[in-house]
């Protein structure tokens, strides 16, 4: 792209100009492809910001994550390409769930069993406990204000390590270059990596929930779809296919409607059970899916 451009002035192009030209080049490369909406952009950016703040806090609570973010906004977020996939997947899942929740009509119905609304009982079945753990893992992916975030436990190990190194490098450059501080930061990075391995994330919770179902997988998946309990559905689909939760979420959110039955085939769901899922996904605007024949441009039918 840059090779095809020439600038008369001696000054290099501004970052803004460079970004716009890159965007335009991307548009030219695929004019028919849907673009990020501002909502998607904002959600992804917010998720990235909260993730970076969380990583910074794990290295050193004294790090000013606001200053770090501002610095990276000016210079570019290191490893932006790596981050993009994770943030986009989380943002899309959030958008889907928020839209789904907005459409839920809260009609209180009497419980079928009288103890459903009973206070906590110590005697939970393995399935109930596993589902509770799944909900807990899921809610760790929101901050105190209900904004979506990426839980460290759910991050790909390589991505987390790279982020730790990038934040540590920024910290070191910002405060000092003495070797003692560098060693401290290195130790903090090492501890953070070890800590991540011990944290239960969505993928682990999904496997535990799947294992606890003990043969009731199709029923549980059907109930999850009927209830629009998308995290539970994604978890079951991920566990049964031995995929990471985030990967399964993105696969589902970007699936063609016709691909849903095969994607979820291991759950043994019939078309009727899948219908609410298909409808919910179809209602999600700006989904990153080619929901039509990509070869059929405006001129295709002429």
């Amino acid at each position, binding site marked *: 792209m840059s090779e095809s451009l020439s600038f008369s002035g001696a000054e290099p192009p501004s970052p803004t100009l460079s970004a716009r030209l890159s965007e335009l080049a991307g548009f030219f490369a695929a*004019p028919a492809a849907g673009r990020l*909406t501002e909502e998607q952009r904002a959600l992804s950016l917010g998720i990235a910001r909260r993730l970076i703040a969380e990583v910074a806090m794990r290295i050193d609570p004294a790090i000013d994550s606001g200053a770090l973010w501002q610095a990276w906004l000016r210079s570019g977020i290191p490893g932006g390409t790596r981050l993009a996939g994770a943030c986009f997947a989380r943002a899309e899942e959030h958008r889907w769930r928020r839209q789904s929740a907005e459409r*839920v009509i809260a009609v209180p*119905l009497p419980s079928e069993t009288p103890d459903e609304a009973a206070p906590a009982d110590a005697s939970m079945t393995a399935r109930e406990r596993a589902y509770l753990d799944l909900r807990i893992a899921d809610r760790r992916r929101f901050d105190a*204000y209900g904004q979506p975030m990426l839980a460290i436990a759910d991050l790909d190990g390589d991505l987390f390590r790279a982020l730790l190194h990038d934040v540590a490098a920024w910290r070191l450059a910002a405060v000092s270059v003495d070797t003692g501080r560098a060693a401290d930061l290195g130790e903090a990075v090492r501890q953070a990596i070890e800590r991540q391995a011990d944290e239960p994330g969505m993928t682990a919770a999904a496997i535990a929930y799947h294992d606890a179902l003990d043969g009731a997988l199709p029923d549980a998946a059907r109930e999850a779809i009927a209830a629009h309990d998308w995290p539970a559905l994604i978890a079951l689909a991920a566990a049964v296919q031995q995929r990471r939760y985030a990967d399964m979420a993105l696969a589902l959110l970007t699936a063609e409607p016709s691909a849903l039955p095969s994607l979820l085939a291991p759950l043994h769901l019939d078309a009727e059970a899948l219908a609410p899922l298909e409808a919910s996904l179809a209602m999600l605007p700006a989904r990153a899916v080619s929901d*039509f*024949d990509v070869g*059929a441009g405006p001129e295709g039918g002429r």
Partner: protein
Amino acid sequence: MTDRVICGRIDRAGVLVNADTPLLRLQQRAGSGLGKPLALPHLARLAALAQRLQRDISRPLRTADDHSDVHALVRIAPDADGASIEISDWRARAMTPPEMAAAAEDTALADGWTWECDQQLRLVALRAAGSTPPVPPGWEGRSLSEIFELRPDGDGRFPVLRALARQARFDGQSVSVAGAAMTLAGDALFDATGRFTGFRGFASVSEPAGPAPEAKPAPAFVDPAFGSLPLSDPQFGRRIDGALRGPLSRIIATAETISGQFDGPIRADYARYAGDIAHAGRHLLGLVDDLADLQNIERPGFKAARDDIDLGDLARRAVGLLGMKAEEKGIRISAPAADDRMPATGEFRRVLQVLLNLLGNAIRYSPDHSQIWLRVDRQGDRATITVADQGQGIDADQQAVVFEKFERLGRTDSGGSGLGLYIARRLARAMDGELTVDSAPGQGARFTLSLPARDDG
């Protein structure tokens, strides 16, 4: 959002030949206009696809102009001359700067914790917001009332428990956590099937209200059967009692009205179902009575009154109250004669309650057309009354547990809560008395209540 359907039409070449204003405006903003090819890429592709397939297509549409994202539903109906476009559910959302979502968290929110629990009040989320102290470790999956010690409001109510019963939002639930006062508010959560799935809310730090109390309040009572709900709190018991009794009474009354076909004839099986509902309602009401009693007698310092009573008189009263029930099964009750007196000391209504429980059990578990005896006696300084039946009896193992809480000797019918005999014995002991059983399989059962005897006059 607009409810109006926005229409347009393209010809076979994809040229927009007419359009309502919103669609035309978008077309113009995209650099095109009427009589020119449809310039909105997504809409153009859908139109081309519909024309190529020659069938109607309905899809979500997303597009944008220079100041808003537009989400809508579009239906494209191809025909021989082109295609008709109908756009509904048109929602234009103003574009927000990318930083908006990230900046939102800087918005000042009251200091406190955000929380979420499931339908059984088990915590699934707890996070500190603002400059609040960190949340206690190990909260995951624990009961809301374990982490937050619930305090009744001025009327003795617990807003969170009322909200739980009503599956509705609440606020103003005072709690304390590690000595700090907080106020809980929460919204009820429902899934797409309408099932209640819990609460999500905020625990705000309360303003200090005057000087700290001198004595630290006792920790909340934790009952192994009921979790950490404050069953030991008399206010709680009264409120739960009141909250359940009213609705249950209405259910029973309505079910009996239907069952009795007071408003006209209905199908027999429906009338029977209503009768079952009334029966189950009465059972639940009995359980409420038992739980209220249980909560009362297990309160530390519970004492029964020391009235001058006559066990013979109380036996006859009990028979008078349950005689009709016995007659329904053809059971004959032999009560002490009118001049058969047995003075004793105990609380009048509590002794009657024990006798009603013993006699009620005897009627329930006796065969039809059998007999029940009530006999009074005196053994030294003890006055006794015995209720004997001709039921199937209780073996030695069962006798050892028959007075345990929630023990129903393996019965699963809706006859009782398993609390009656437990409460009866607790009451007997609270009156310096005792309740014992003597039985053998096939020999019926003899329950004997003994109380301090009283010498007349």
